[in-house]
């Protein structure tokens, strides 16, 4: 009899106490020790795993099995659905799973009927799970707990534990107003985007990591790999690959969005309809946005105001970027000659200059809209990718330089002008307008701080926003002159007009000539050694300009012969050099993407950029430095390139075994335009550093400011590389 009692006690102990499978211990916990009928009590299945072992989430991922709870409950008690705390994404990459290490409490609400009789309730559950480390073992246990039902409510000793596990449950709100949309399917695979339109709230910081854990489904699989296109809180955007197993493409996606900041992870339950097209108007798209044809503009994100401010500030800063400096010299000259004119006329010229700038920006905006409507990506300065444009601009800027040297005049009436004062008086209006156009054209290969963000934003928007942002940049560029025109008193420090102006004008021809050299170098990247023919063409044009000025404009007789000679000279020069020698409309396509830039690089072993090269280097666990650059990009070559080609950066790259990739945007290949657009900037320079840990998104380096020294930017690069080397 005593033996029997002992056995019963032993059995009870076994049943009530923790049940241990091979490596996981299971327990049933309750949030309350005592409660009243009609209440809801939380039950928690606590699984404690030995170090290195894990159990699985409701979607185990590529392998494994979700833990299962089967209840044996007395009448009047009903169990709700299991609430799963946020799991971890568990390696390896090719068989990724979602699960829990160390400990998890799966929470199940138990609803007590209102008419439940008082007394002790025995709650029993059969829990089965798969536990894995280097191998997998199925485990199961029957766990139980007792709940007193009566007239009073009493929390259990585990109440605090419940609170801490409840905090780990994904929140049931679409906090980020995410939307889901498909890209084009390829066979049974299709990229799925999850993105939120920029909300422009003040919470725009970058998360350390963003993830999406899909719910499980038999008809399709969602890749474990997540491509994070934007980790900014206000405009999250990530991309997963979906593989269809059977049936149609899903119309809805559900799962948990995971964001991490300062080592704290939060989960958000999401369930979204999937649209076939990217949402219009958001900056979240990685695909070209169709321009809305005459329809109503899409709802604008609230950040438009801030982007307009950025556009304006960026426009002002453009004035001191090296690109626009030669034009500034022209403007100063204009102001000097106008200084003594009546204020009304000065204002008028200031406005005409602004008009030239604004109309040019309007033309640029139209170009961008046209390119986008054709289904391509547009980029700031993309016209420099066209060698034909570069040749025309080189010729034009050289003519401006020769004009400043006084070789010929630009007149509307065909009469030569003798004094500087007359010069200003006669072609003031046309000159001011032309200066505005030239300032805009020369500004495009430079991006300025603020400008990159504003343009990157604009390029993803519809037509009206593009026009608005572009005009604002133009206003910013023109604003200093408009202001000066309105307050000519501020120009008092300038000397009086006089003979010195002619000398100043000639002096200003030299910055223009320097611009010609820079453009010539840009042309060289398209034509290779054949660019010599462009040089010869320039000489012919210069000769023709001199004959035109000397014998036609200033000549006294046989002016018709002179003009005919000029025309013949230009025509034959064009035919022999540009057409025959250079074959200028069919530039040499460089096969090596790193091109001339690589040859000139001192130490860094640049490899040509491609998405595959990035993926391969990341798969090998190496940090990646990507320099998006172009030979026409002044900021790239003046600041970024010397900052990267620096001994300390070189040494750091070697120590980290990092891969350096060069994306040459000189001829604006669409793959690079598309890649750049992903990072919300409109053009080069763009420097990315991909961390060693392939799950982390790339670090986007800030664009250098115009007054920054390369050494300062080197430090920015080194900081990023240091961060990237952390696992």
């Amino acid at each position, binding site marked *: 009899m005593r033996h029997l009692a002992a056995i019963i006690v032993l059995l009870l102990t076994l049943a009530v106490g923790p049940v241990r499978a091979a490596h996981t211990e299971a327990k049933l916990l309750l949030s309350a020790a005592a409660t009243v009928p009609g209440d809801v009590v939380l039950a928690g299945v606590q699984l404690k795993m030995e170090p290195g072992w894990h159990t699985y989430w409701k979607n185990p991922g590529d392998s494994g*099995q979700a833990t299962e709870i089967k209840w044996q409950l007395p009448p009047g008690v009903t169990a709700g659905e299991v609430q799963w705390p946020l799991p971890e994404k568990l390696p390896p990459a090719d068989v990724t799973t979602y699960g829990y290490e160390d400990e998890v409490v799966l929470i199940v609400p138990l609803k007590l009927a209102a008419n439940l009789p008082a007394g002790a309730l025995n709650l029993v559950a059969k829990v089965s799970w798969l536990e894995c480390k280097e191998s997998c073992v199925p485990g199961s246990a029957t766990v139980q707990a007792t709940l007193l039902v009566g007239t009073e409510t009493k929390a259990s000793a585990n109440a605090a534990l419940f609170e801490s596990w409840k905090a780990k449950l994904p929140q049931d709100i679409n906090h980020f107003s995410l939307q889901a949309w498909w890209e084009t399917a390829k066979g049974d*695979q299709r*990229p799925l985007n999850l993105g939120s339109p920029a909300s422009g709230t003040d919470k725009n910081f970058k998360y350390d990591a963003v993830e999406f854990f899909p719910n499980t489904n038999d008809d399709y699989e969602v890749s474990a790999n997540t*491509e994070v296109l934007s980790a900014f809180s206000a405009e999250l955007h990530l991309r997963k690959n979906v593989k269809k197993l059977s049936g149609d493409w899903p119309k809805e996606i559900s799962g948990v969005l995971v964001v991490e900041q300062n080592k704290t992870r939060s989960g958000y339950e999401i369930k979204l309809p999937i649209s076939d097209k990217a949402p219009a108007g958001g900056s979240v798209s990685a695909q070209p946005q169709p321009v809305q044809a005459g329809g109503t503009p899409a709802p604008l994100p609230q950040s438009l105001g801030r982007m307009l401010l950025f556009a304006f500030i960026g426009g002002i800063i453009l004035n001191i970027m090296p690109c626009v400096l030669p034009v500034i010299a022209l403007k100063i000259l204009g102001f000097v000659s106008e200084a003594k004119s009546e204020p009304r006329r000065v204002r008028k010229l200031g406005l005409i200059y602004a008009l030239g700038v604004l109309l040019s920006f309007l033309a640029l905006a139209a170009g961008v809209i046209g390119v986008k409507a054709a289904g391509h990506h547009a980029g700031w300065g993309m016209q420099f990718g066209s060698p034909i444009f570069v040749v025309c601009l080189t010729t034009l800027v050289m003519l401006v330089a020769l004009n400043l040297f006084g070789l010929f005049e630009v007149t509307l009436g065909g009469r030569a002008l003798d004094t500087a004062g007359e010069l200003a008086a006669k072609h003031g209006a046309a000159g001011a307008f032309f200066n505005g156009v030239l300032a805009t054209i020369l500004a495009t290969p430079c991006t300025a701080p603020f400008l990159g963000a504003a343009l990157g934003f604009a390029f993803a928007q519809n037509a009206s926003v593009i026009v608005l942002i572009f005009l604002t940049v133009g206003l910013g560029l023109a604003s200093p002159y408009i202001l000066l025109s309105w307050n000519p008193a501020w120009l008092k420090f300038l000397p009086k007009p006089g003979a010195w102006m002619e000398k100043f004008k000639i002096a200003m021809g030299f910055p223009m000539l320097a611009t010609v050299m820079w453009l010539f170098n840009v042309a060289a990247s398209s034509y290779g050694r054949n660019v010599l023919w462009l040089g010869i063409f320039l000489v012919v044009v210069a000769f023709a300009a001199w004959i035109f000025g000397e014998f036609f404009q200033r000549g006294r007789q046989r002016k018709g012969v002179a003009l005919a000679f000029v025309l013949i000279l230009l025509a034959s020069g064009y035919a022999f050099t540009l057409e025959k020698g250079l074959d200028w409309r069919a530039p040499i396509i460089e096969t090596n993407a790193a091109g001339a830039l690589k040859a000139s690089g001192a130490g860094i072993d640049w490899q040509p950029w491609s998405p*595959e090269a990035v993926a391969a280097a990341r798969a090998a666990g190496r940090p990646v430095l990507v320099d998006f650059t172009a030979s026409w990009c002044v900021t790239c070559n003046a600041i970024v390139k010397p900052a990267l080609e620096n001994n300390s950066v070189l040494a750091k790259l070697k120590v980290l075994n990092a891969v350096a990739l060069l994306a040459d945007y000189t001829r604006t290949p669409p793959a690079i335009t598309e890649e750049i657009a992903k990072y919300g900037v409109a053009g080069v320079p763009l420097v990315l550093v991909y961390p060693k840990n392939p799950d982390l998104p790339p670090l986007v380096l800030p664009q250098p400011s115009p007054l920054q020294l390369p050494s300062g930017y080197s430090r920015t690069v080194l900081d990023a590389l240091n961060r990237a080397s952390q696992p």
Partner: protein
Amino acid sequence: MKTTFVLFAALALATSAWAVDIGKPAPDFSATDINGKTIKLADYKGKIVVLESYNSDCPFCHNHYASGAMQELQRDLAAKNVVWLLVDSVSTRNFSYRTPEQARKEVADLKIAATAWIDDHPGELGHLYGMKTTPHAFVIAADGTLVYEGAMDDRPQPFGDPRTAKNYVRAAVDELLAGKPVTVSQTKPYGCGVHYAN
């Protein structure tokens, strides 16, 4: 169009797991079995071939063999002239790795009726086909086309009798032999992750 291709290439690279396509020719391979014999897919042209990623320490695989259901299926299909290849991609560092002697003993002990057991401990064949779990099954038609990829059956459990489940491999082979299209050509594989070397 070109950029879209680049994008997919990048994705394909990033998710190396989905390596094979239904309806496309199954990639050829050359591997060594536990008897040192070279096994090539091309050698079985004209025959239906079943690939099964295998690790009998995995409870899901174990249940298929402990219940005898898998061997039964292997014998049934062998009688229909179907080739069945076990693919063991377990790394030598994992304790589930079997040396050729251990593997030969296991074949005898479990009465495994497969055509061959491929020793794929470098994981090349497993990665080529994107084998994720044990078991993970592939059915290749007599003309070399991949017609099925996924789970063994619709019962992702490490216990109980697999004979009560709908076996996708048996169904695919029967449909092929009857000259019918394969109804279920892709499912989500279940089981333990393959213990690859990398």
